[in-house]
């Protein structure tokens, strides 16, 4: 065990606070709580402990061994070996932007590249150095909107098609704000809504509208008209994206979005039991002063050489921190680096190729499954790599059958949308071979007859 203090140092500290011994220092803690019986099994040797942990780990089924058709916000993409190899280099391997950031030019440059990549993908003017995940990034959009209108507009409209976790996190973040009305996704709201239905809810008290692209159900909409309508009412439009889809489709900036948020996990970050992931946050230029978190800028030093600095951080960490609008003062540095390496490695055409594979394989799967007796493709909107299928039996039953065939089935939508019983959300990525898709189809057919 590492104990940082020497006996002498401890004696000095005890003397400074005026007690004679450690026992005396802790006297205020009732004796029965000081060393409680923890009822633990006898200690194991490292070898025994390793064997036990491995046995536990083997009880997990992993996306590596199963044919994975589960998405719902986290996607099983291939991560090239180079990503991990570069990520684990000692120069980069830290979770945070260093506290004395300018001393770490390599890290700052990587973050700057990350921001540039996100700007390229989203078409927006500025990206920050990331948030914890898609959910917290979405919540920050609500915080931004609140302060943008100086608390004078108190209505936020959430499409039911925004990831349920994003909406929950946004509500948690907005808890302490007075009179905030978060609407649009109440129980009973049509899950499969359209941009027109969102448009009809706009009023002059609306600060922010949040929609998904693709939405939670995989659907893609052209939000151009919605953006124009939002702006007519003076409201901001936030589009929550899957960045992988942006390699293939119109960008949120093309629609006129004011804020783009998203879950960056598809960009080279492994599923790893749900995190840590990466929050994307990009805005139009006129909102640059309002974004929370960190921002890296490029400049020149006294000798005219290129260098990188944290910029516009007054409100976050430094001279104006008493005026901060968000308590976020960190970022997912390591995972932003992960996305940077992945995206750079694939390049524009590589990323597009991955997105195309996802798109085509998902459409093949949708066609095969949609034509099975008892199954019905629910939405007729364009989609990227995920789609909703109505199933002849409860999704949980079907998934347990699929698992017997080595297939991790789609997401049971009734878990988040009670009215959507017998609705499965199926995700397909470049990792799913045609054989896997055919096996899914056959197993689904079998479960209907079985």
């Amino acid at each position, binding site marked *: 065990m590492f104990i940082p203090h020497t006996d002498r140092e401890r004696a000095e500290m005890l003397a400074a606070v005026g007690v004679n011994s450690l026992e005396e220092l802790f006297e205020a803690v009732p004796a029965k709580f000081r060393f409680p019986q923890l009822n633990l099994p006898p200690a194991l040797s490292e070898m025994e402990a390793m064997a036990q942990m491995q046995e536990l780990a083997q009880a997990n089924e992993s996306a590596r061994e199963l044919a994975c058709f589960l998405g719902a916000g986290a996607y099983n993409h291939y991560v090239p070996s180079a990503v991990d190899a570069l990520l684990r280099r000692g120069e980069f391997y830290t979770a945070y932007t260093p506290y004395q950031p300018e001393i770490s030019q390599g890290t700052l440059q990587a973050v700057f590249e990350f921001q540039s990549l996100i700007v390229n993908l989203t078409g927006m003017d500025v990206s920050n150095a990331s948030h914890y995940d898609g959910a917290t990034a979405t919540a920050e959009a609500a915080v931004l909107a609140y302060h943008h209108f*100086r608390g004078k507009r108190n209505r936020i409209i959430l499409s039911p098609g925004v990831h349920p976790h994003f909406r929950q996190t946004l509500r948690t973040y907005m808890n302490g704000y007075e009179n905030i009305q978060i609407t649009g996704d109440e129980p009973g709201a049509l899950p499969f809504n359209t941009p027109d239905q969102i448009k009809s809810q706009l009023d002059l008290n609306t600060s922010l509208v949040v929609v998904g692209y693709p939405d939670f159900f995989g659907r893609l909409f052209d939000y151009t008209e919605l953006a124009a309508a939002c702006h007519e009412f003076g409201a901001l439009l936030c589009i929550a994206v899957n960045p992988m889809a942006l390699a293939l489709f119109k960008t949120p900036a093309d629609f006129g979005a004011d804020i783009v948020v998203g879950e960056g996990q598809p960009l080279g970050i492994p599923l790893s039991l749900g995190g840590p992931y990466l929050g994307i946050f990009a805005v139009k230029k006129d909102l640059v*002063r309002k974004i929370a978190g960190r921002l890296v800028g490029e400049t020149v030093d006294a000798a005219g050489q290129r260098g990188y600095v944290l910029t516009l951080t*007054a*409100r976050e960490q430094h*001279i*104006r921190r008493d*005026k901060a609008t968000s308590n976020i003062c960190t970022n997912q540095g390591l995972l932003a680096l992960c996305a940077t390496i992945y995206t750079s490695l694939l390049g524009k055409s590589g990323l597009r190729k991955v997105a195309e594979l996802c798109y085509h394989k998902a459409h093949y799967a949708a066609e095969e499954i949609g034509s099975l007796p008892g199954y019905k493709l629910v939405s007729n909107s364009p989609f990227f790599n995920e789609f909703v299928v109505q199933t002849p039996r409860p999704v949980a039953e079907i998934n347990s059958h699929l698992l017997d065939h080595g297939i991790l089935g789609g997401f049971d939508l009734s878990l988040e949308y009670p009215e959507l019983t017998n609705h499965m959300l199926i995700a397909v990525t470049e990792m799913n071979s045609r054989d896997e898709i055919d096996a899914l189809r056959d197993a689904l057919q079998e479960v209907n007859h079985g």
Partner: protein
Amino acid sequence: MSTPTNLLFSTTDEWVKVEGNIATIGISDYAQNSLSDIVYVEFKVSPGEIVKKETISVGVESVKAAADVNTPVSGTILEVNEALVDSYADINTDPYGSAWMMKIEISNPAELNSLMDAEAYDKFCENRSH
């Protein structure tokens, strides 16, 4: 820059020009000089709003500091100088002219009595710099 004698000043370095019941407000040369190069201006009030004396109404950030501008008098905001959002550098070059920040319809003229004239303000600044 000599301090214009037709203005009144607050201890938080705002200047006030009174014309009838309208007060035009900005920040003093001393204030812009202490802040150094201004890089950002943000209005926190909009026309029509009723403000009390010492309401934080404008945020100003420079390369080395950030400051709030308070309303030196109570009243109704008539106008804010939105052009400053783009021409913020005017605060450094023309603090008493084009860098005016807002106009307020004064609701309590008695509040003007607590402000300093140019001579008193110069002395006030001089004492601070020691």
